[in-house]
């Protein structure tokens, strides 16, 4: 089965081609079948391969398949080649699985859109590109997927291209991502050239990581920081996060699939994939962790004041991605990937839920015009509720396990720090607050729905609610593959990913420590039990913080709905600052966009037109003027010509005379 790894990306590619060429001609029925089944087949293939993989002993869970030589120039050689290992297959399962459900949901959600075939064409292309990103066995093919998903994101954000806001958002996403890609590409160059100095000319993952120890620490630090700039673009971290909130202009299933569950996690995946490099560069890891945690708390705060339900979810996504980076930044690669997986479930679900709300309310996004929808759209409510519990970190749901592992690692890992934990824990409380705020504003309290809309509120059709229910199920149980040892569970994610990410990190040590401690805990009362107790204590603290967040949200939005307004007026300046997202977009506009535009105009008008063409045209006029003057020399008098000839002869003779003397 391994030999057929190329089938995983092939199916979506076929879907893309069929939908693209025939979709318009053969109509919706055709597209509705081709689109989702392409992903379904790919999902099935991934499942088969997954089972074959776990049938092998952990050390042998690696396979590469080269399809053909791609760019070959001198000692630079890259292939189109795929690799299967625990990390890539886990990602492939998450991506194809979640994509499959979202494709099905889209059949219902997009059904009346005139661009239906185009939508599925793009969506299939996206999955194809995403799978290339994940399954690539070298940096360059990963970069193909990396930019490819960026393209699909661009196309899908601007799907309703007649809306200026949508096409602006698409462009913004692409260009900001290009800033990140600039870092990524330089990282690749530096990696390639510095390994080349040791005679190893490759961008192949296996070879790079096997020879990484030949690189000196400063180089590795630079490489990993450059790659991380790429990750900041793709995964919307400070300072490149600005595109993601705007990306909500796209259809909601797209926000769910691309801008929550899959594409935006590519940066986390990349860092985890390069764990060997990052583990060699503590400075870079610290940067990753700090950027991650800073993004987590910063965007959580923006989430407080947003009134657009999708914007809340968007900032929440950025914030959660920050957690994942915190995880990988402290060396807890598997924890980061674990959170990536659970987040894909619950955040994908939240967005689909928001889509279902929009569907019910004729496209309304403003939470101030919602309320009391609990009874009217019960399936949407319950699934949304489950996802909210999961993201808030309520014990028993998937988000709890993965987030808690990150928090614990942020504290206990050798790369961790108490402050990292503290900030992350506070951000967790803030997450609980704004998510419950959204939940309360949407589903509880008084109805503030526009009367015109109110009378035809309806639950979404089965084709949309079934995916909701499946994802809700996964949001609950998805965490049980990674139950911490202190709770008496077995962290399967950890064990499964260990062959890829275990070796690189010092985490190995910490990990061994934990299991040792948990054994100690199991036998109870022994010396090591203290640390396990600490872990439990931390866990309790984070749950308490989350509950406080929920409590405040309850107080503000159920108990006393007048309170938020009061506070907003009291702290007006602060409120406006946060409400306007700290004016970062405006700042960027002045700093980058306007200044580049003025520079462009200045160079064009000032240099091109004035200096260069001025000179050129000036010379032309000068020649015209001179020839006008010289014309007067042509007097027609023979003696004048004779004089000129003699003068010329004297000059030439003089020249050769002088030359002869000096040579």
């Amino acid at each position: 089965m391994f030999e057929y790894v190329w089938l995983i990306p092939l199916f979506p590619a076929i879907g893309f081609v069929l939908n693209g060429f025939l979709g318009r001609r053969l109509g919706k029925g055709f597209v509705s079948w081709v689109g989702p089944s392409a992903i379904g087949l790919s999902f099935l293939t991934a499942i088969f391969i997954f089972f074959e993989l776990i049938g092998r002993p952990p050390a042998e869970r690696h396979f590469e398949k080269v399809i053909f030589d791609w760019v070959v120039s001198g000692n630079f050689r890259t292939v189109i080649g795929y690799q299967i290992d625990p990390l890539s297959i886990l990602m492939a399962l998450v991506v194809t699985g979640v994509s499959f459900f979202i494709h099905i949901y889209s059949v219902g959600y997009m059904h009346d859109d005139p661009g239906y075939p185009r939508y599925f064409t793009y969506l299939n292309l996206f999955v194809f590109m995403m799978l290339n990103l994940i399954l690539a066995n070298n940096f360059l093919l990963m970069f193909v997927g990396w930019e490819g998903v960026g393209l699909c994101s661009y196309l899908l954000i601007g799907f309703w291209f007649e809306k200026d806001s949508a096409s602006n958002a698409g462009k913004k996403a692409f260009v900001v991502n290009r800033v990140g890609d600039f870092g990524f590409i330089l990282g690749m160059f530096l990696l390639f050239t510095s390994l080349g100095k040791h005679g190893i000319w490759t961008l192949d993952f296996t070879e790079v990581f096997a020879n990484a120890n030949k690189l000196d620490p400063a180089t590795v630090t630079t490489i990993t920081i450059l790659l991380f700039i790429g990750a900041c673009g793709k995964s919307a971290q400070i300072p490149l996060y600005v595109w993601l909130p705007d990306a909500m202009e796209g259809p909601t299933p797209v926000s769910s699939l691309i801008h929550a569950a899959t594409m935006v996690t590519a940066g986390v995946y990349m860092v985890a994939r390069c764990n060997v490099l990052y583990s060699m560069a503590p400075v870079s890891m610290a940067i990753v962790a700090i950027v991650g945690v800073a993004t987590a708390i910063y965007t959580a705060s923006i989430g407080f004041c947003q009134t657009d339900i999708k914007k809340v979810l968007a900032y929440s996504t950025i914030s959660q991605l920050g957690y994942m980076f915190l995880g990988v930044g402290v060396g807890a690669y598997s924890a980061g990937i674990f959170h990536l997986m659970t987040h894909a479930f619950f955040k994908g679900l939240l967005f689909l839920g928001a889509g279902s709300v929009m569907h019910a309310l004729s496209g309304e996004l403003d939470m101030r015009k919602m309320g009391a929808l609990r009874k009217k759209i019960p399936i949407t409510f319950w699934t949304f509720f489950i996802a909210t519990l999961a993201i808030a970190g309520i014990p028993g749901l998937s988000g709890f396990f993965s987030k808690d592992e990150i928090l614990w690692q942020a504290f206990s890992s050798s790369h961790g720090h108490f402050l990292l934990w503290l900030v992350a824990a506070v951000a967790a409380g803030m997450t609980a607050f704004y998510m419950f705020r959204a939940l309360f504003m949407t589903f509880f309290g008084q109805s503030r729905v526009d009367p015109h809309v109110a009378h035809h509120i309806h639950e979404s059709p089965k084709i949309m609610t079934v995916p909701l229910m499946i994802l809700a199920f996964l949001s609950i149980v998805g965490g049980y593959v990674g139950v911490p040892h202190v709770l008496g569970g077995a962290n399967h994610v950890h064990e499964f990913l260990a062959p890829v990410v275990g070796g690189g990190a010092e985490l190995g040590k910490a990990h061994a420590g934990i299991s040792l401690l948990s054994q100690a805990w199991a036998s109870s009362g022994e010396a090591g039990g203290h640390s396990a107790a600490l872990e439990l204590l931390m866990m309790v603290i984070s749950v308490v913080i989350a509950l406080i967040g929920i409590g405040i949200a309850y107080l503000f939005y159920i108990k006393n709905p007048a309170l938020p307004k009061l506070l907003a007026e009291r702290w007006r300046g602060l409120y406006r600052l946060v409400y306007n997202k700290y004016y970062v977009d405006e700042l960027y506009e002045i700093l980058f966009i306007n200044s580049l535009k003025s520079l462009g105009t200045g160079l064009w008008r000032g240099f091109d037109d004035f200096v260069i063409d001025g000179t050129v045209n000036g010379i032309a006029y000068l020649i015209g003027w001179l020839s006008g003057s010289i014309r007067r020399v042509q007097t027609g008098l023979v003696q004048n010509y004779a004089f000129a000839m003699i003068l010329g002869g004297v000059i030439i003779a003089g020249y050769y005379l002088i030359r002869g003397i000096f040579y």
Partner: protein
Amino acid sequence: MTILGIPILSWLIFFPLFGAVVLLFIDKEKVAALRVVTLIFSLIEFIISLPLFFAFDSTTAAMQFVEDYWWIQSYGVSYKLGIDGISLLLVLLTTFLTVLCILCSWRAITFRVKEYMISFLFLETGMIGALVALDLILFYVFWEVMLIPMYLLIGVWGDPKRRIYAAIKFFLFTMAGSVLMLVAILALYFINLKATGKATFDVLELYKLGIPIQTQYWLFGAFALAFAIKVPMFPFHTWLPDAHTEAPTAGSVILAGVLLKMGTYGFIRFAIPLFPNAAFDLLPLISALAIIGIIYGALVSMMQPDLKRLVAFSSVSHLGYVMLGMFAFNMQGVQGSIYQMLNHGISTGSLFLIVGMIYERRHTRMIADFGGLSKVMPIYAIFFMIVTLSSIGLPGTNGFVGEFLILLGAFQSNVVYGVLAATGVILGAAYMLWMFQRVMFGKITKPENEKLKDLNAREIVTLIPMVIMIFLMGIYPKLFFSKMDATVENFLKDFKGRVEMKADLPSPKMIAEIKK
């Protein structure tokens, strides 16, 4: 060496000329016949050129399909033709683009069709000749031959408003450079005559000459100026926006696609191998100008209100990459550079085709006159998008392979060059996507745009080969790289060998002694 005993390169040069002669006998009123005959000639020309690709021996760096006869024996002027891995692909690009140019002129040219078609075929002769000539005088003749039909294309069939200004500007800029080149060619001839006693203009012979470095600077300067104007490199680029804007669509396509490549080709075939030490010493200057070109071109392009001017400035940026890669003097840089020459021909050529298609419909090129065209022209939108992405250098398209290798090559030769040039990756996306957005997205604001017709069959047929090439070159570049591997390797080996041998060059003192 020839195919089946046919002197194929001569055929390629003179077949279009023969076509032009045939056109002379067709009544100028029979416009349809003129078009069809020209198309057939250009198609046959393309078909004749195809066997080159397959018969080409990619294991050797030697010139192939060589024809060598005396032309003016007493002065050592020969009719020597041949191609290697570099010119092979450019020749194919030329024959390929000419067909598409004839197709896109179908409806656009309604005035003096006969003269137009004759000029075009004449131009093809000039282009192929310049690419396959291995004798400096022969090259120079073809170089100048190209100039005349291009001048006419702009001056006669251009946009009436400024076509004369543009045509003269084009002519004068190019002439200024090429006159100096002619002087340098003659100087080179005499230096060689003095050194070896052999009268020859054969470049392959002249490569072997060791020229004092001071002289090299002067001669390289003259050649480089001629080529830099043609490329065009910053700051010699200002003729390009005018020429492109005023030229008819096909003129812009062939200008961008092939004529600009004559500049870069000139560097790699003549300026660098003839004067390697000077080229090496001036590397910082050329690289700096190339990088300025990349960034400057992108920034100025961003602010252009006119589509054709925008694409023209983007050419300045793209050709900056070509020059930067070439002067990286490593395998990735040079191969990327050659590949980027082809890419630019394909993607910028397509952009001009695409702009031409809406120009024919709306008779305006101003971005502000469009907006929302995706709605009424969905097929057009797809082609436009693909071409835009190719121009941006999205992975999977041809543009990426070239740009990536160039940047990698530049990075290896000098980290600062690589980093600075890579900013072009960001700017490129910015100006292209912004342009695309303003033309294609949003609501239709102008009533004239509401009834625009989508592409017709002929237009689709014109664009499909381009799109195929965009993906073929992006996904399976090996097909083309394998053709130039040996040539580029040899080029670099030769270059490096001679740069290292710099100490052995005769100094002016030594020459003075030899004279005595």
